[in-house]
């Protein structure tokens, strides 16, 4: 119980920090903290595999990407800068809208969770134990049987991501349309090198 509230506090605080930090790097750090806390929360919910994945994939891979990009865009040491705010009056409405939406959602959902009841005869046990709910084996078995199709689709998604990023990034690459063109480019480059050398 206490653990939950601590985690909740960390989660909320780090989330707020994420969206309020002045510098993007601080946001990443805050997010890292958030993800870590989330991983622990998962453990309290019998999701050991997910806890691990959360750390490895999210914290380890995704957030690193963010850091790289921040570094790339910051052009060395200069911080990411912003221009003039074109929606200066949007803050209050935005917060109001968010609070209202949250209020309604909370009003609806919190009064209703009692409906949810664990299935009878559930195989719940200590987290980390093999064979119980949420264990890696249990998880894997479901993943490769009942949920095989979604899993396969993720392969396609990742493929799209890879190819897409390559295409987006490769925008500036010299393009070689035909063989003749290729030869001409090659010849020009060679001549240029020769000129440089002289």
């Amino acid at each position, binding site marked *: 119980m206490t653990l939950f509230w601590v985690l909740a506090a960390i989660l909320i605080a780090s989330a707020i920090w994420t*969206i309020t930090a002045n510098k993007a790097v601080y946001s*990443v750090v805050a997010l890292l903290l958030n993800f870590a806390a989330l991983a622990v929360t998962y453990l309290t919910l019998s999701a050991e595999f*997910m806890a691990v994945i959360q750390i490895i994939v999210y914290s380890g891979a995704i957030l690193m990407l963010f850091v790289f*990009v921040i570094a790339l865009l910051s052009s060395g040491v200069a911080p990411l800068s912003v221009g003039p705010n074109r*929606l200066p009056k949007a803050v209050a409405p*935005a917060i109001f809208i968010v609070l209202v939406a949250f209020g309604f959602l909370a009003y609806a959902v919190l009064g209703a969770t009692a409906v949810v009841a664990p299935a009878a005869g559930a195989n719940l046990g200590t987290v980390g134990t093999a064979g119980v709910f949420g264990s890696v084996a249990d*998880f894997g078995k479901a993943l490769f049987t009942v949920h095989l199709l979604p899993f396969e689709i993720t392969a396609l998604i990742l493929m799209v991501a890879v190819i*897409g990023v390559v295409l987006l990034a490769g925008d500036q690459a010299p393009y070689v349309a035909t063989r003749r063109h290729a030869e001409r480019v090659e010849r020009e480059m060679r001549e240029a090198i020769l000129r440089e050398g002289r």
Partner: protein
Amino acid sequence: MAVAISNYVGLSAVMFFIGVAGVLLRRNPLVMLMSIELMFNSANLLFIAFARAWVANAGQIFAFLIITVAAAEAAIGLAIVVATFRDEKNVDVDQVRLLKG
């Protein structure tokens, strides 16, 4: 189990709307992307909490798949951000408004 599922649901709702607020309030596209990650994570928390409640591992698997998607999305998102702001002085979505009515 000591903590009611509703607490987790509430927690995830708070996180979700913090994420929404991030998208609405921040002008840095990277922070916006991070806010979106927050929203996805809150959904993950929801799935895992309900998976625990129902003792149905479909929720966990869903969360797992969401993480994968989030990774792909982050990759593409960052690529687009880089492509967009590579030549810009400011990394600020407010400055990107060639397209308007």
